[in-house]
Each structure stands twice: as structure tokens, then as C-alpha cells.
């Protein structure tokens, strides 16, 4: 049940997701932006669909 990704893929996801979190300019992601990030990292399919 769920989705299983490699540790290497999780590292890529974590880096992309949190890279700018400490920046004063950080404003959060829209669902569309988050979806685009998932797709760029190959995280596709119904499990990763946000809407």
C-alpha cells in the first residue's frame, strides 16, 4: 500500500522541496507548483496527484 521510492529519490525530493524554505522570499507552493515538482522528479501516477 502506498508508494515506495529509493533513498536516492527521496534525497532528491527532499532537496527540491526544502531548498528555499529558509529564504525570506519563501511563500509556499501552490498545488500546481508542487505537482510540477513531483513530475520533474518522476513522481507521477495517482498516488502523487494532488488534485
Amino acid at each position, binding site marked *: 500500500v*502506498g508508494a515506495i*521510492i529509493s*533513498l536516492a529519490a527521496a*534525497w532528491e525530493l527532499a532537496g527540491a522541496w*526544502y531548498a528555499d524554505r*529558509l529564504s525570506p522570499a519563501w511563500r509556499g507552493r501552490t498545488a500546481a507548483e508542487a505537482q510540477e515538482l513531483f513530475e520533474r522528479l518522476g513522481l507521477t501516477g495517482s498516488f502523487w*496527484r494532488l488534485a
Partner: protein
Amino acid sequence: MAPDDLDQAMRLSVYGHFVRTGLAPAAEEIAREVSAADSAIRDSLERLAAGHVLVLDPGTRELWMAMPFSAVPTSFRVIAGAQQWWANCAWDALGISAMLRLPAEIYSSCSDCGDPPRIRTTGYQLTEGSGVVHFVIPAASWWDDIGFT
């Protein structure tokens, strides 16, 4: 201070405290740092929680998560030099090292074997560690119960 400006100052104050100490700041500490009244701090925390920027404990309304940091001990511990942080999940443990760009060791409980796999990173890449990360809850439902997710 306008609510948006206060929320921004609060966010930076909370994250700065986590980065420096590994711990969540008390509301009074944030109030001192951003020069705002306790009631304004409480309102701001609620706005930030509503916006999914932070997560508050459902009962006490104290700070619980400033993703990737956890205010409470978890199964995921990140150590960089003399500093340590608790992460909310495996993704967040990796996220702490990647966000801080610090060489780190990550300790967690393996859900299958109970062994504590060690992961090392340079802050820029993984240097040690194997295995997989299991996501149980589909992405569209992560915020239904973020504590469980």
C-alpha cells in the same frame, strides 16, 4: 505591524530558532524577538497553521512542526556536528540536511527490521545509506491528518 509582515517575521523567527537550537521556540521567545504582544503571536501562529506553513498541536495549540523540523522527539533524528534536530518523517530528515546544506548523520527506526539504518550526507549529496522510503498516504490526502502522514 501588518499581519502579513508579522507572519513573515514569525516564520523566520521560528525557523531561525529551530536551526540554531534544534528546539521550537516558546511563544514568549518569539514575542520578544519580533516585538509583538502574546495575543498577536497566537493569532499569527493560527494563521500560519491555517496556511500549512506550521503545524500546531491540536490540543495545546503549541508549535508541533515547522516542516521539516519537529518540536517533539520522533523516530527520525538528524545530527550535524554538535547540533541535532528531530524530523517529522524520513523525507523531512533528509530535508533538514539538504535545507541546511550541512554534513549530517540521520538515524531512524527501520519499520521492517527495527535496526537503526544510518544515512550520511554531505548536505549536497548522499554518501552512505541504502533502502527505500515508504509513503503510506496519497499526496492529495497528506493534510487530512498531517500528524499521521
